[in-house]
């Protein structure tokens, strides 16, 4: 990019001082000149390797049952996605002593949704529009930086976020809004490889952090509002070579294709845009899928629309499916199944069980057996759920009033954003047996219209009329849910939807934030707020904790996307702009 500045005014000044006696027609023509500045850099590499002498990130490190205390090396904290630090010194009392150690601006607008990763004394954090920063995790010093130059006319339904990097060996990996997956040398910022996952012009994008397992980077596409054919891929982390691709919508003649009317499966959406989970013990990968396309008109895709809104269990070596469970068959509300999965070992009716639990976007908290996908129970975790009840087999019994209509007036709950949503995380404290779930409490009027499919254009078929948000009636809760039973133990209520991620600590604290621009800490046992910090920016990120040289840090990216805030909660006055705050306990 060349920056050009016209200097016509300056030249006019020079010419005005031309010597007297020069005939008018002999005066030099006054032409504006341009100064060409050098291209603005987009990639600042480190001249010398940065960070400590820590060796490559290994499978053993990632497979730990808890997130390590001195680092944060994966989006979910551990493969079970607990986002729970073993640090016991972050207590309801001690967090009152948190103070800002350093802060860092991203220079971008749009939601700052990342979970930072910390390894070898370096924090790797991504901003909206795919800036990747390597920062000294103790001081915030910028060590290297890469500003991805996304293609023009991105196909984004809901803003320009990125939720973080994966780390493996000596590489960090980032997916981009124009559907590339890029690996960087974590010590220098050099690009190791760059693959195009899909043609973004067809409606694809990547917003998730990749999940690193078995030496592979696993990442899925967004595009459910564009009628894409959803999929998620596994790439060899060293080389970027595609190992397997798993389509979330069957092809012609494949099992499940008959759950779509006609050829509607060809534009069936069902994106895989969030992070999965991995069970090293059984070598099983778990991934979730989103809404069938078009979102709000199911007339042309009669049937269950497999494997939309589902949980898939797969062999990570092949990508072959072991079993599936569909949460919302024939979804016409945009109730993506892509919310956070927790892998939980606990007792049910006195018997030890290996469970997978999820607060689904459709408003129900599901408990499944993760060895075979068998339904155990579902309980509403929201205060307002009226679109369906769940039968003994886990299948929704739909309220006919809640179906989209051309002249709809019925307030259906939850909204199309959920409940819980895949753009933010909860956390789970295994000692307390509680999952902490942020959510939006809002209802909408789902109206059906005429959609039209054309590759790369929005394919929606209707809209959710944001009646509660528009009237200022949308609000939020952060709920503590008994992991095994799904019963709500406490709720913290906020005036606007809670759409920020959560961190849990072994010291009994829950840390999250609000759209109005506060970072908050709550007592994990009671839900009582014990600390607030006015960040100014709406909270949409996934906070983390780590300890370096004996000092405990909490990192919270802040900054939201006003369009989505308005959609979810009504017009917002909070300005955009990403800022990362890192707090520390006293030395």
């Amino acid at each position, binding site marked *: 990019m060349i920056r050009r500045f016209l200097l016509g005014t300056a030249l006019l000044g020079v010419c005005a001082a031309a010597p007297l006696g020069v005939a008018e027609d002999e005066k030099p023509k006054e032409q504006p000149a341009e100064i060409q500045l050098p291209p603005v850099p987009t990639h600042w590499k480190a001249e010398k390797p940065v960070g400590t002498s820590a060796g490559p990130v290994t499978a053993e490190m990632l497979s730990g049952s808890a997130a390590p205390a001195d680092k944060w090396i994966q989006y979910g904290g551990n493969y079970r996605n607990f986002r729970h630090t073993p640090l016991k010194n972050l207590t309801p009392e001690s967090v009152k002593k948190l103070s800002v150690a350093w802060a860092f601006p991203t220079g971008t607008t749009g939601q700052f949704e990342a979970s930072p990763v910390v390894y070898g004394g370096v924090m790797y954090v991504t901003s909206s529009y795919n800036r990747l920063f390597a920062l000294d995790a103790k001081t915030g010093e910028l060590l290297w930086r890469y500003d991805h130059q996304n293609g023009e006319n991105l196909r984004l*339904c809901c803003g320009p976020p990125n939720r973080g990097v994966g780390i493996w060996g000596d590489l960090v990996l980032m997916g981009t809004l124009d559907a590339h997956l890029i690996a960087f040398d974590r010590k220098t910022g050099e690009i190791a490889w760059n693959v195009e996952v899909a043609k973004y012009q067809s409606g694809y994008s990547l917003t998730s952090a990749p999940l690193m397992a078995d030496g592979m980077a696993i990442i899925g596409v967004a595009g459910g*509002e564009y009628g894409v054919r959803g999929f998620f891929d596994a790439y060899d982390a060293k080389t970027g070579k595609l190992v397997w691709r798993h389509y979330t919508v069957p092809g012609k003649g494949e099992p499940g294709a008959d759950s779509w009317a006609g050829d509607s499966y060809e534009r069936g959406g069902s994106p895989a845009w969030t992070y999965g989970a991995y069970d090293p013990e059984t070598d099983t990968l778990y991934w979730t899928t989103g809404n069938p396309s078009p979102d709000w008109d199911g007339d042309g895709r009669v049937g269950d629309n497999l494997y939309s809104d589902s949980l898939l269990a797969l062999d990570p070596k092949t990508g072959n499916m072991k079993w599936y469970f569909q949460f919302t068959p024939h979804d016409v509300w945009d109730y993506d199944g892509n919310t956070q999965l927790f892998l939980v070992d606990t007792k049910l009716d006195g018997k030890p069980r290996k469970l997978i639990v999820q607060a689904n976007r459709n408003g129900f908290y599901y408990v499944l057996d993760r060895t075979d996908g068998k339904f155990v129970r579902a309980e509403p975790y929201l205060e307002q759920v009226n679109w369906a009840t769940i039968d003994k087999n886990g299948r929704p019994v739909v309220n006919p009033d809640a179906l989209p209509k051309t002249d709809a007036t019925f307030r259906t709950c939850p909204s199309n954003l959920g409940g819980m949503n895949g753009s933010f995380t909860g956390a789970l404290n295994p000692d307390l047996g509680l999952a902490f779930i942020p959510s939006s409490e809002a209802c909408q009027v789902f109206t059906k*219209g*005429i959609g039209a499919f054309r590759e790369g254009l929005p394919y929606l078929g*209707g809209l959710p009329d944001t009646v509660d948000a*528009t009237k200022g009636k949308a609000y939020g809760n952060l709920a503590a849910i008994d992991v095994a039973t799904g019963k709500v133990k406490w709720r913290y209520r906020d005036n606007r939807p809670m759409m920020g991620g959560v961190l849990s600590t072994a010291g009994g604290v829950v840390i999250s934030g609000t759209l109005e621009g506060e970072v908050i800490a709550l007592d994990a046992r009671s839900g009582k707020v014990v600390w607030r910090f006015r960040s100014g920016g709406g909270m949409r990120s996934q906070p983390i904790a780590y300890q370096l040289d004996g000092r405990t840090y909490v990192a919270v990216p802040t900054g939201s996307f006003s*369009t989505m805030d308005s959609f979810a909660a009504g017009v917002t006055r909070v300005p955009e702009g990403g800022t990362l705050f890192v707090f520390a306990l006293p030395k």
Partner: protein
Amino acid sequence: MSRVTLLLAAAVLGCAGPKAAVQSSPPTPPESPAQRFLRDPAAIERGRQIFIGTCGAYCHSTHDVERDAPSLFDCEWRHGGTDAEIFKSISEGVANTRMPAWKDALPQGDDDIWRVIAYLRSATTCRTPPASAH
């Protein structure tokens, strides 16, 4: 030339004066298809359903609410408010925004775009639609 002929000529010239003045003002533009659809309730309803199924959701609000995509029900038109200008914005998209080009993408082509414009005109909260709408 007879007197009668002269009178006729004068009469013609006399008429020619005002007639010439009419010809020097801009000609009345032909009615846009949107105005024709605006008289057809079924066309307006189809335009509404296309708007709901295609333009709303995360982009233009069905209420007079601004998101990053503008409200289309107020008096403000960032890229021209005549029927033809709105048609161009929908058909060709708007560079450097999220607005894509819908030409040939709707089931009944250009007519569906005009029906959407007719719906927007019918549902506007603007009390005095711009004269250029016609």
